[in-house]
């Protein structure tokens, strides 16, 4: 009986604070990989926290609170990117990498601070987001398509292109290192 009550109980303010303390870096990193912009990533997490707080009656106790907020944060990051660049996820046919290295991008890359970040830089927005959502966030292809407002075929193509480019870049990085 107690278990049932606990399962149905709303997450408390303390639990939210504990989740922030434990997972702030992870949420922020996930959002940063999507937005490639510190402030947008910070805002995404903040929006997610407030949204999660308001909707906490929807939270299911069989999932971890941190995981639930993580998902909301990733959604918030996608929304913020889309709000800033409304057509960013509609250019599925393009195969032009974002090679214009702005100081901001360099900064974010150094923030991410690893080979993956460097490799992700060679992807277009749609390729990067599809790869991040599939490979790192482990979303289903259908979920990605729904979230980006496109079809599964388009997501697959973006993912294939992304993976291909990443493998080439990683191979180059490996050969440089050796």
């Amino acid at each position, binding site marked *: 009986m107690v278990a049932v009550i606990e399962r149905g109980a709303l997450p408390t*303010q303390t639990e*939210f*604070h504990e989740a*922030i*303390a434990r997972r*702030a*870096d*992870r949420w*922020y*990193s996930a959002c*940063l*990989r999507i937005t490639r912009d510190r402030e947008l990533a*910070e*805002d995404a*997490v*903040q929006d997610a*926290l*407030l949204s999660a*707080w*308001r909707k906490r009656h929807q939270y299911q106790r069989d999932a971890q609170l941190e995981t639930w907020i993580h998902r909301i944060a990733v959604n918030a990051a996608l929304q913020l990117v889309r709000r800033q660049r409304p057509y960013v996820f509609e250019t599925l046919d393009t195969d032009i990498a974002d090679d214009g290295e702005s100081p901001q991008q360099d900064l974010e890359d150094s*923030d*991410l*601070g*690893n*080979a*993956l*970040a460097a*490799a992700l830089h060679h992807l277009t927005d749609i390729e990067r987001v599809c790869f991040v959502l*599939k*490979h*790192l966030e482990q979303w*289903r*292809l259908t979920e990605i398509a729904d979230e980006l407002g496109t079809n*599964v075929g388009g997501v*697959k193509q973006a*993912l*294939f292109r992304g*993976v*291909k480019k*990443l*493998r080439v870049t*990683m*191979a180059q990085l490996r050969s440089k290192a050796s």
Partner: protein
Amino acid sequence: MNDELLTLYYYRDGLTEAERRDVAAALESDAALRAAYEQLCRDLAQLGTPQEVAVKADVVARWHDSIERAARLERQRLPSRGRLLHVPSFAWGTVLAAVLIAGIGIGFYVAGTRVPVLDGASVATGADSTLPASRTSSLAFVRGLKVHLSKSRRELAGLPDDAAAERAALIAQMIEQNRLFERAAAQNGSRDLARVLRAFEPILERLAADDVTPREAEVLQAQLAFELNVMLTKLGRGESEQAGPI
């Protein structure tokens, strides 16, 4: 059999059961394909452990604070939900008025501060004469603020009186938006505008509380009106000086 099928096979997504069986059979029987798949697995595994970025302590503190505020607003409203039916029109009307006045005031304020100081003399707004990077960004800022305020007004006006939690959430949202504008102002070097926006926050919070009496709300409203008058007067003076004798 190509890399694309192998990629979907790796992710266990996007293939039908029959297609998965075909790929598995091909991998079983074709050593070269198996080697290619193993290489793909190694490459993708290498991409699977991204380094986390440490978020700044002040940002984390802001996140904690936002939860704290949301919870506090909710606590203020939820225990005596019934009171909304007695005080609400006045209190909520006051909140709306305050927010709208603030929006208009800030609009004037920003518009005033972006007037270029051609002779190098500082206008009454002092440090804020350097506010915007460009006229376009200032206008966008003011427009964004006004849109936010209009939206808040519509949403608040459309809520039923007994939706205490929703009201609390909306006020929390308005305060968060206010903080975003405050931060934008601060980042643009407009310390005064940021300060004014900060000053609105506790007043809005208090006005939103359901234990606020009509008398207290009146005092708070007067306080807010006073702050806005001071600001508008300063701006008016600044504009006069700008348009002064030729």
